């Protein structure tokens, strides 16, 4: 258990290391998720307009 606590403490830099990784995950994950969701929505809309023929 101390191993985990030590790791989370990051040698006293926890307040800098974890926010850095959290910001990266939020910003890059957000861009990726938004791109994925819009891609999906545009595919569904196009299929609805075109009928069942393409993709």
């Amino acid at each position: 258990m101390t191993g985990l606590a030590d790791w989370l403490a990051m040698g006293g830099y926890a307040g800098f290391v974890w926010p850095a990784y959290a910001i990266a995950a939020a910003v890059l994950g957000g861009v990726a998720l938004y791109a994925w969701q819009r891609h999906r929505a545009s595919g569904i809309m196009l299929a609805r307009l075109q009928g069942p023929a393409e993709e």
Partner: protein
Amino acid sequence: MLTRFANPARFMRASGALLPWLGVVAAVVLAIGLVWSLLLAPPDYQQGQSVRIMFIHVPSAWMALSAYLFIAVASAVALVWRHPLAEIAAQAAAPAGAAFTLVCLATGSLWGRPMWGAWWVWDARLTSVLVLFFLYLGYIALVNAFDDQSRGARAGSLLALVGVVNLPIIKFSVDWWNTLHQPASVLRFGGPSIDASMLIPLLIMALGFMLLFGWVLLLRMRTALNERKIRALRLYGQPAPRGATVAAPLPAASRT
């Protein structure tokens, strides 16, 4: 290769087949990179555990520059050869590039505070990267500022090309001016000066970021092509003519 994928229909087929694989590989590489960066890599003898910020800061900086270079090259191709996918590629890359730049700035700030004692300093490296971030935002705003999409794309392409001058300034800012920022330790003459135990996770994270960028790029390009088709279908009840890069001219009936 450029001309082979000039046909949007062929691009849609190829990218559709590639997309799921790219997503899975990106996720796996990023997972390996994260475990290596946060668990396996040793702490630095001077900077302690804070050095782990490097594993996202440096790759995001590389991607911030690479994505801008990609936009500039695609813009040049769009202006010179009118390649139908070049403008779409440039515009699709911009938000991801801006995101990498933002991550680079934020993580740099979080690293600078414990190491330099300052969240931010107005030195050449930091300021030129901030300018890069505003170039991204300016490009995105300019492209969307025109009612006529082709004019927005043209203006954006020109801005992207002018902004290229910032890239060497960023890269060599640490050599040309006095700065708190450390000089390059990977991409330098004489080979990397960083130990393999840190270089390997750094390169894995860089590869992961690159794959993520590719995945987002393909998603956004496909979305743009889909939305173009949707607009055409709504206007005319049929897809735009082959090779049309913008909305086709108004139907004869609506002209005055």
